[in-house]
């Protein structure tokens, strides 16, 4: 009883191409990488470099034209009081948004990672991603209505006789305002809402990677649940927090839509850039402002690396 050997299928063009690519693996890799590398190199980095190049030029005060000579005076203009205000405002907002998002995301991500099973986990992902299916602008305007003086928050507060609490919050100096939708607090809340999925998902991934046996081992060795949380879970989840914070921080630094709709009319970096490159025609200054978030993120990432956030990599 013998087993007949099946003949090899006939050599077609497709098979020859596949065999060639298989034996010349580098070529296959190159073919895969060329489109995204071109995209990254030419369209993204190229345009970014072109913009940054502009930041070393300056505007001649009399003619209003861009003088294409290398100079640092445009950067010098960043250090005026008004411009430093903008930078500080944006950076502070980015930091506070990051903190609020981390605080909200942690319990949600923790529950999803450790307790949600099967169908509930899928439901969780859906719930987190669902807002991203709708328009960004629609969500921001929805918040404007919610936070308005005649909006639902004020209404509920009044019904619960907590109107005084809302007024108290609004009267906090600097961050308060005439209504929630016209104060920094409102901006802070909306930013935090919009970027929340980007904090939840990396955090949940990091928490899921903590093996159950490691948590059991900590309990086995005598640690109470609170101690296990502080000494084992939190350090292991920290890279996830940093990954999420990179999103919230950088996205807030560059955003120009939300501060324009919600909050005081004092500008953020994104709005300033838009203004300078648009109506004012001051491309060098717009470019200089663009460098600021890049520089801030570079410092941020360096600190994150020192704190061990990229250990897992």
């Amino acid at each position, binding site marked *: 009883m013998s087993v007949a050997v099946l003949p090899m299928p006939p050599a077609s063009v497709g098979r020859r191409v596949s065999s060639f690519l298989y034996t010349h693996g580098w070529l296959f890799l190159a073919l895969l990488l060329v489109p995204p590398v071109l995209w990254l190199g030419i369209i993204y980095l190229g345009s970014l470099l072109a913009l940054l190049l502009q930041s070393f030029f300056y505007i001649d005060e009399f003619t209003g034209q861009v003088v294409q000579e290398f100079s640092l005076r445009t950067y010098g203009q960043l250090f005026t009081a008004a411009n430093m205000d903008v930078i500080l405002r944006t950076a502070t907002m980015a930091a506070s948004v990051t903190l609020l998002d981390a605080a909200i995301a942690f319990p949600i991500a923790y529950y999803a990672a450790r307790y949600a099973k099967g169908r509930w986990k899928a439901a969780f992902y859906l719930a987190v991603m669902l807002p991203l299916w709708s328009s960004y602008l629609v969500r921001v305007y929805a918040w404007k209505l919610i936070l308005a003086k005649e909006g639902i928050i004020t209404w509920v507060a009044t019904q619960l006789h907590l109107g005084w609490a809302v007024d108290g919050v609004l009267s906090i100096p600097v961050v308060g305002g005439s209504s929630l939708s016209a104060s920094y607090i409102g901006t802070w809340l909306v930013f935090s809402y919009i970027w929340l999925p980007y904090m939840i998902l990396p955090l949940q991934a990091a928490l899921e990677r903590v093996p159950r046996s*490691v948590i*059991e081992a900590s309990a086995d060795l*005598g640690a109470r649940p609170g101690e296990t949380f502080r000494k084992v879970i939190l350090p292991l989840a920290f890279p996830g927090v940093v990954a999420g914070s990179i999103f919230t921080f950088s996205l807030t630094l560059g955003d120009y839509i939300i501060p324009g709709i919600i909050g005081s009319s004092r500008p953020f970096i994104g709005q300033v850039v838009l203004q300078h490159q648009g109506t004012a025609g001051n491309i060098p200054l717009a470019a200089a402002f663009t460098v600021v978030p890049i520089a801030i993120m570079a410092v941020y990432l360096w600190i994150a690396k020192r704190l061990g956030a990229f250990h897992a990599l």
Partner: protein
Amino acid sequence: MAKQATTAIEFAGVSRHFAEVRAVDAVTFTIADGEFFSMLGPSGSGKTTCLRLIAGFERPTEGRILLHGRDMAGVPPFERDVNTVFQDYALFPHMNVRDNVAYGLMIRKMPRAERYARAHEMLEMVKLSGLGERRPGQLSGGQRQRVALARALVNRPSVLLLDEPLGALDLKLREQMQEELKAIQRQVGITFIYVTHDQGEALAMSDRIAVFNHGRIEQIGAPAEIYDRPATEFVAGFVGVSNLIEGAAAERILGSSRSFTVRPERIRIAASGTASPGDACSAEGRVAGLSFLGATTRYKVDIGNGTELSVIRQNSDGLPSDDIGVGDTVRLIWEKRQNNMLAADKR
């Protein structure tokens, strides 16, 4: 003065149900202080669940578990004087080896100098001194296993639980670790409760073995007793290789149809027609298969009535001789006292 054997662990009618599945089914036994006790069985037999019940990671649905006479109902794992060596070692990836080992002592608020000294001592005992600054990710499997052991032992628990700790190691390393574990247990003198599916491991290391099957214990006893006098067909088949003779074949050989087992190494294989002593059992058969196993040769002999017996012969005179080959008719002879009569299978 005779040493009083105190009871370390007692299970009284313990059951653990997961919905309709009875992972542990009305299990009762005791473990004495200082003994090396193994829980042996196939996957899903309930042995790991029993271990987790002792550690406190699971709660029994019925029954009581006592640790040194104290009922463990409602006592969480961090309040039990029990430590576990996990199957995947469960080392803390964000701490180095020394901090891993000293973790339990840190939780107990022992001052740093003292706990580092004790951790160092422990690492020496498991032959890992000098690796204190390394991280778990930089260690080999065998080294991680030792760190897990050191981390559990440093707290001087009264009972140490080991959940298939040698499963991921290769054969040579596993055998070496078996000897070292046995030596450490004798040196430290605490109760070891060892879960494994490897019957050879259990036989080599234990003072007593409990054989698990489908959530119940089929037999508890010393290794020699389990091997020589298996109580049920399952134990006979799971612990070592055994020949099961039942029905018509049993009738022919022993005169009654009661099932019995006999170990392959106790059967002598000889040429057909060899005379056998009066009180011995014998059977004629045809050699259906032959395997060279290095130190021994295994023969499969068909003796009729649908029964094929395994016979193991030691290759003490060099390689297997050409006297017996596949297809030959042979005579199998063994002493009556080597037969193990089976009780009715406990299902």
